[in-house]
């Protein structure tokens, strides 16, 4: 599965893209898995109210399923316009 990170989440994690093998079935489970990796991930995902997620480029809630997804993205609240 491809993971993408944007804005300060990308900076805190240190990369904008990586490939992972995961057993997680929801976005929230995937976050918990990533947080256990190291301090950079734990810090990046420390405040879940500041985290938005997209599954296959559609914005979703954190309890959304990821089974069969090709790409999951994480980013802070959007500030376009």
């Amino acid at each position, binding site marked *: 599965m491809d993971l993408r990170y944007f804005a300060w989440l990308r900076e805190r994690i240190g990369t904008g893209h990586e490939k992972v093998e995961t057993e997680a079935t929801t976005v929230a489970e995937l976050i918990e898995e990533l947080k256990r990796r190291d301090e950079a991930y734990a810090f990046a995902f420390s405040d879940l109210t500041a985290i938005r997620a*997209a599954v296959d480029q559609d914005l979703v809630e954190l309890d959304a399923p990821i089974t069969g997804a090709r790409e999951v*993205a994480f980013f*802070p*609240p959007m*500030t*376009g*316009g």
Partner: protein
Amino acid sequence: MIRVQAEPFDMGAELTRFTGSVSGAGAVVSFCGLVRDVASGDLDRMVIEHYPGMTEKALAGIADQARARWSLAGVFVLHRYGEMRPGELIMMVATASRHRADAFAAAEFLMDYLKSRAPFWKQEITADGGQWVAAKDEDEAALRRW
């Protein structure tokens, strides 16, 4: 029509082209957003990051919602990414309808949704470095009126 680009654009030319492309319209409403200076007045530039692929998909989805809610002869959304200086145009929306009420409402709807549902992130660069712009609670609250 949706366009996402790094290059600057000519608002007048875009609006003329859009107005010429719609048929049966009696009203065109447009809005543009500019790079605003920071409170301390020393903004060097703004850098906008986006999520290629999702950006176009999200903007098209928002435009489709507007077309479903109002009777529109046309919708145009243009948003830039990359580096821009204070005073430069960041983005524009334009809507066309038979009567003005639909075009006004749809343009406001597009802006409210685009601000917190399209994957763009602004970073302000000053002499002190880069600062990510925080989302405002009122931007999220603005969605509830629709």
